[in-house]
């Protein structure tokens, strides 16, 4: 099974562990990840905040490269890239004026932006192959976790068309598939502060602490995410969060691919578990005894 792969800038930098875990899980599931050749940045929030034209042109260029590389589907683990690629594609398909403008900026002939490849986030992609995952589980991930989806995966529903907007369940299903238990909590899609991590850290502190507060009250042993921005806000900014919490907490923040990797028996090193700021220590059920490379 071959699928296009667009890691995005975060996965080559601050969230390298997300990229490592996606690649090792894919290898374990015999999925060939064909990286989009010479991919450029999707522009993330700053582009659409202050330069709408580029915020459509940059993702369009990525999809154009994927199309020219013959990739029908592009797996995009990072929720921000997923949202920008989808939004770019949607704007091009629905607004002729935008399409013409983007064709001029990319310098590509008209019509080359037709039938751009399909964009998949990592949950959507893994949800397509439950049997293959279940078959390869060697040590069940027996922990109670809080699945945190963030806002860009499920919003705006008219564009993303993924899962239930206000109470998504697909990640919960994946965790259950590999033996885990998930709590029913109210902050699955509340925003974590996203791109304010550097320029307005207090906002991130306020929002992320609310999320952490609800998760800890319901005794979650870890938070599972599928977005590098959410991960860095909940992990890197833990000091900011703990300052606003009733009781500081050190529960780790894992990527969904890391959870599945553990269930497939992959090693800590391959999943980049060592790269987190909040050390990954899980109670009772320690890590699997034998380490399979």
């Amino acid at each position, binding site marked *: 099974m071959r699928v296009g792969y667009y890691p995005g800038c975060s996965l080559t930098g*601050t969230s390298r562990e997300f990229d490592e875990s996606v690649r090792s899980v894919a290898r374990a599931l015999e999925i060939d990840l064909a990286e989009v050749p010479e991919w450029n940045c999707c522009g993330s929030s700053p582009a659409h905040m202050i330069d709408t034209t580029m915020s459509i042109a940059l993702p369009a260029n990525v999809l154009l490269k994927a199309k020219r590389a013959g990739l029908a589907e592009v797996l995009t683990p990072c929720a921000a890239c997923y949202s920008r690629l989808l939004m770019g594609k949607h704007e091009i398909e629905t607004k002729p004026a935008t399409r013409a403008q983007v064709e001029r900026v990319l310098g590509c002939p008209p019509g080359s932006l037709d039938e751009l490849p399909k964009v998949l986030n990592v949950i959507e992609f893994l949800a397509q192959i439950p049997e293959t995952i279940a078959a390869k589980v060697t040590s069940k991930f027996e922990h109670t976790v809080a699945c945190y989806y963030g806002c860009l995966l499920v919003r705006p529903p008219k564009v993303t068309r993924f899962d239930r907007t206000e109470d998504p369940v697909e990640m919960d299903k994946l965790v259950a598939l590999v033996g885990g238990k998930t709590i029913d909590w109210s902050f699955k899609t509340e925003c974590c502060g996203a791109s304010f991590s550097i320029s307005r850290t207090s906002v991130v502190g306020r929002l992320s602490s609310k999320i952490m507060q609800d998760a800890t009250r319901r005794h979650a042993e870890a938070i599972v995410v599928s977005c590098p921005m959410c991960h860095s806000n909940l992990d890197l900014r833990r000091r900011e969060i703990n300052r606003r919490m009733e009781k500081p907490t050190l529960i780790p923040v894992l990527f969904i691919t890391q959870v599945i990797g553990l269930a497939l028996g992959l090693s800590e090193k391959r999943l980049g578990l060592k790269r987190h700021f909040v050390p990954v220590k899980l109670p009772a059920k320690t890590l699997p005894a034998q380490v399979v490379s």
Partner: protein
Amino acid sequence: MGQPDTVTQMHDTAPDAPRVRCFAVKKGTNRRPIGAYFSQSEGRTLTPEKYMSCHHESPSARHSLAARLKEVGEVDVADCYQCGKCTAGCPAAEEMDVAPSQILRLLQTESPKHEKRALESMSIWLCIGCETCVTRCPQEVDLPRAMDILRQESLARNVANRAADDIVAFHKAFLHSIERSGRVFEFGMIGDYKLRTGHLFQDLGAAPSMFLKGKMSLLPHGGGSKREVGRMFARARAAKKESQP
């Protein structure tokens, strides 16, 4: 809703209802702004001022922000009936000086005084872009798209709220890094941000472990087709100059 009752052509709203175009006093999706109606009505010479109450001194409506929003972003501020649901759900509303629904209200009057307050507000910069408001808006008003356009208009007119300098600096540093290396070179981007804002010592504590954990590298890793991306930025800037009157 202080809008004077006027007779204008618009479309019925319900998606599957028969498309009834009627000259009736009724709200609709792409209702033409009032100014444009007056200036086109045949025969009678009606000046907009004569009919607008002084509370909303209206410029000629052609280049009001509301008109631009409708044309460029297909966002019709007239759709909003001020129910406050966007403000209620907005994660950043607490810290905003002008609530999201109030921003739309300021645009609805199409008067320069109110538009100025919107462009100079801190709210447009505190908007995180989490799309919660458009997801739940009963009138499906695309507020995030409106915020994008307001931010860019605010920068174009150089009236951005000074308290938002850090945020503006971050966005500019981010884009600058993309323009130069095709991808975001985090170390370079943060350096650029610090120079622009003067917060030289922010997050210094975290720097060492970032390098140790391999999350940060001193050199940009290539492959971002940076020449091509550079040309894209240049063409975009050129196109923008052409379209600006």
